[in-house]
């Protein structure tokens, strides 16, 4: 069978040749986080839960504990727990809903899609942290009215640390999603594995030293206290390497190699 090669070689139009800019891809991935029912409701639940944290502190906390720092720190809990699920869904839904087929047909450079998902995850974490700060500020304005302390002091280091913590957890969600490519499995493993490791590390004496360096739940605890020491940063870096970077790299390899059908 001969292939006709004597036809004039068709040229690719410029519009199809140039890669899709990262900013546009990131925008698309951000939009995809919120344009399904699952994603939208997750965001609504996070918003409501964050509101609830302020309500709980205003209604039931000791008056001296009602400060901007406390409202802000407690307010970050819902997004720290639930935003990673959005990070997981962002990757796994491409496979469970089989949209990978059309996604990678429009953008064959899969690494760029994955990078856009990571960027979108980081941006939504930053946005959630900023929204929480605004909400906490609003609640703190009401605080004096309910007899609360209402002080505004917040150690600047806490802002950056909490921001990083939020981003780390969402990226960990991205990473577990890419590694497992299965929504329920990724969600269960994401929550269960670190928990099991924390229990083991806390109860088995031989693992105690290792868990000081490798348990993200332990090392990230320092991020909620002002002015982390260099030792704390080192431990955080090591544990984040194991729980975020390593699965992200392995997951990326899996996504890049996997046949789409």
């Amino acid at each position, binding site marked *: 069978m001969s292939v006709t090669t004597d*036809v004039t070689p068709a040229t690719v139009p410029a519009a199809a040749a140039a890669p899709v800019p990262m900013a546009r891809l990131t925008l698309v991935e951000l939009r995809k986080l919120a344009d399904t029912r699952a994603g939208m409701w997750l965001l609504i639940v996070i918003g409501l839960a964050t509101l609830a944290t302020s309500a709980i502190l205003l209604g039931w906390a000791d008056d001296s504990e009602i400060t901007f720092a406390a409202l802000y720190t407690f307010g970050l809990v819902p997004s720290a727990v639930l935003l990673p699920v959005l990070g997981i869904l962002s990757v796994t839904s491409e496979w469970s809903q089989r949209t990978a087929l059309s996604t990678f047909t429009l953008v064959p450079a899969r690494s760029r899609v994955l990078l856009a998902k990571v960027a979108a995850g980081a941006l939504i974490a930053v946005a959630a942290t900023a929204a929480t700060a605004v909400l906490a500020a609003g609640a703190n304005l009401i605080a004096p009215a309910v007899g609360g302390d209402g002080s505004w002091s917040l150690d600047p280091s806490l802002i950056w640390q909490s921001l990083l913590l939020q981003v780390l957890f969402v990226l960990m969600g991205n990473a577990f999603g890419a590694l497992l490519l299965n929504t329920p499995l990724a969600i269960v493993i994401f929550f269960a594995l670190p928990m099991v490791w924390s229990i083991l590390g806390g109860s088995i004496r031989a693992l105690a030293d290792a868990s000081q360096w490798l348990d993200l739940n332990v090392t990230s605890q320092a991020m909620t206290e002002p002015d982390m020491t260099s030792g704390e940063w080192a431990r955080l870096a090591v544990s984040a390497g194991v729980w975020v970077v390593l699965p992200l790299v392995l997951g990326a390899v899996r996504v890049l190699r996997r046949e789409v059908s």
Partner: protein
Amino acid sequence: MIAVENLTKTYGPQRAVDDVSFTCEPGTVTGFLGPNGAGKSTTLRMICGLTPPTAGRATVAGVPYRRLGNPGRHIGVLLDASAQHAGRTGREVLALAAITMGLDTARVPERLARVGLDGTAAKRRVRAYSLGMRQRLGLAYAMIGDPAVLVLDEPANGLDPEGIHWMRGLLRGFADRGGTVLLSSHLLREVEVVADRLVVIGNGRILTQGDKEALLGAAGTMVRTTDPAALDALLQRMGLTGTRSADGSVLVPTDPETIGQAAATAGVVLLELRPAGSGGLEEMFLRLTASTGPEGAHR
């Protein structure tokens, strides 16, 4: 245009696609035919860079698909209409494609209308779509970047007869304006009307390919006679093997003149003598695809 050169894909010991080569030229509709599991979808996935080939290569406009930075602006692809997020609305699915390609989302409603999805359908989630509606959405998705090439895998699945007719018109018009269409189907009748060229694949290998007219012509001649035994004897002398249909007519693999002349000389009375046409093509299709053994390869 699309060029497929010696494309091969093996999964373990199984050769899903085996040394497949063909080209699709601008201005033509190529029908990619074969029974289920023949390797059609795997071939299309390899063309679109979703499955890495074991050997061989496929190019679109001269370059491998994966080297296209923004392929949607040149090639529209519909491989599986069901592979859309069930929780997105039809409008959102198209909007995402438009944004990715760097196009204005303002074109979305008009594109949906063009494939027969009205405003109400556009606002519904894909979960609520019938397969036919998903195919229509998939076509709009493939065409939203105003591509020059279309690759469609079984696009008629789930469409009603009116929908199939509409799609044929759409693809024909697209090709007549200079577009390239590669269209797969397991049903010959579906592509026969619209295709200019046919590529028939079975068991991963190309069984036959060429212009539809040529294939139709090469399909042979339908002959009906008052004396089947005499015709059989005549065919035997000519070294031809006829295929007898249920209605008593015989499909002879030669042109009408040859067999008509021979019948006249031999004094065999013919009741019917005509090019086998599409009936013959279907006959050929069934014959080629039924024999999946090594003798199945032709040409």
